[in-house]
């Protein structure tokens, strides 16, 4: 296949896509854990907020989220900053808008995955943590979280695949990712099929790599299932 010297452009786009996906994953995991904690908390307001968050975000198209944050975000931020007396112009770039939108969407689905995983942990584990003299937060980080992690990895792996594919949407607001760079290449070569097909193959490679990594993580997080048959 002749890329007519546009290969480096696609590679730089791939790098941007990977950066976007990983940043959104990190922020999204924080959203997901917070959401799950809120959904399982005893505080009715926290539960109500978390339910509202997951219901709303899961019913909205990701593209709409990206567009809203990119075009409306600076308006909203300036309004908030303005009420504190800050009047400079605030601009949200496509990368930041992309991370915000994708992590909000990822977080809503991850909330459910984490909630299910946390509910799988028997209550007795919390109680034995307390019986050993650990505080609730220490029990959470030492005992519960490592196990939640193991139970959540398959679900999170699927969500990350969705996230990876959704990064393509951020090209609509002008981020120089794989999609955008292929469009640049197309505008001078006039070969849309070739370059979009190459873009598709890069995405396939990325999702295949993610699948392999998820399987590796599943093994790594589950020493019990690996056993000692060695």
């Amino acid at each position: 296949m002749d890329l007519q010297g546009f290969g480096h452009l696609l590679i730089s786009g791939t790098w941007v896509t990977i950066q976007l996906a990983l940043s959104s994953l990190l922020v999204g995991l924080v959203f997901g854990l917070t959401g799950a904690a809120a959904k399982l908390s005893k505080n009715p307001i926290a539960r109500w907020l978390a339910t509202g968050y997951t219901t709303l975000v899961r019913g909205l198209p990701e593209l709409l989220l990206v567009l809203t944050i990119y075009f409306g975000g600076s308006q909203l931020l300036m309004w908030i900053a303005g009420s504190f007396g800050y009047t400079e112009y605030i601009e949200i770039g496509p990368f930041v808008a992309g991370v915000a939108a994708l992590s909000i969407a990822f977080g809503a689905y991850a909330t459910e995955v984490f909630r299910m995983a946390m509910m799988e942990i028997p209550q007795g584990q919390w109680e034995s943590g307390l019986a050993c003299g650990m505080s609730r937060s220490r029990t959470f980080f030492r005992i519960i979280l490592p196990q939640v992690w193991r139970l959540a990895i398959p679900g999170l792996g699927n969500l990350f695949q969705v996230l990876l594919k959704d990064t393509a949407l951020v090209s609509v607001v002008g981020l120089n990712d794989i999609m955008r760079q292929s469009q640049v290449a197309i505008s001078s070569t006039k070969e849309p099929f070739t370059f979009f097909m190459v873009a598709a193959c890069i995405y396939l490679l990325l999702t295949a790599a993610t699948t392999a990594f998820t399987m590796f993580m599943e093994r790594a997080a589950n020493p019990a299932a690996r056993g000692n048959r060695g």
Partner: protein
Amino acid sequence: MTWEWDVIWKYFPRLLEGAWLTMELVLISGLIGIALAIPLALMRASKLPWIKALPFTYIYFFRGTPLLVQIFLVYYGASQFEVVRESFLWPVLKQPYWCAIIAFSLNTAAYSAELFRSAIQAIPVGEIEAAEAMGMSKNVQIRRIIMPRAFGIALPAYGNEVILMLKGSALASTITLLDLTGMARTIIARTYTPLEMFLAAGVVYLAISALIIALFRFMEYRFNRYQYYHHADTPADLDPQLRDPHIDQK
């Protein structure tokens, strides 16, 4: 920042026009998608490796790449080839409407084929064996036992797929279609009220998802009725000979 309710009220009818196109896209591509998914799922559930290979590749490609790439491949990609531009297909392929429907149908077919395949494989073996014992041929089994059962099993998961399709249909706006998102973007270009218009569009999307969820709840109740049966309480003075221990347990 001023919040302009007037703009929302003024342009709401236009948004609803867009919502209509969104629903049309979802419905038409959903139906074509099911028609494609059933043969794909049956092939995928086959035991012969060379029959499995084709649907596997198809599903792998469409599930592993973003929907945006698929839409662009159909809409922009097809025009690269002289053969396509001169064929009878060109009047169809040059319209964004049909390109969106083609891309959405191919995409949802891949996802639903996986759902149907797992549903086919979730049918209890005993039911298939019973059908065989009754002397049904493979075709009759598929028509009378496998398809209706798989439909019932796949229904809740298919409801999720339709919601995902609704969300994916927003991508139609990237190829100049005036669906709900496209309409909102057009209005914003004129009025510059992004937050108001996108919020209004979001509310309409949520309403459509609520509608879809309600529809699928109702269908589940109709088609999986066996899960909703409640036995009447057995009268206490019933002849012990007539008692059914399975019913008494509940």
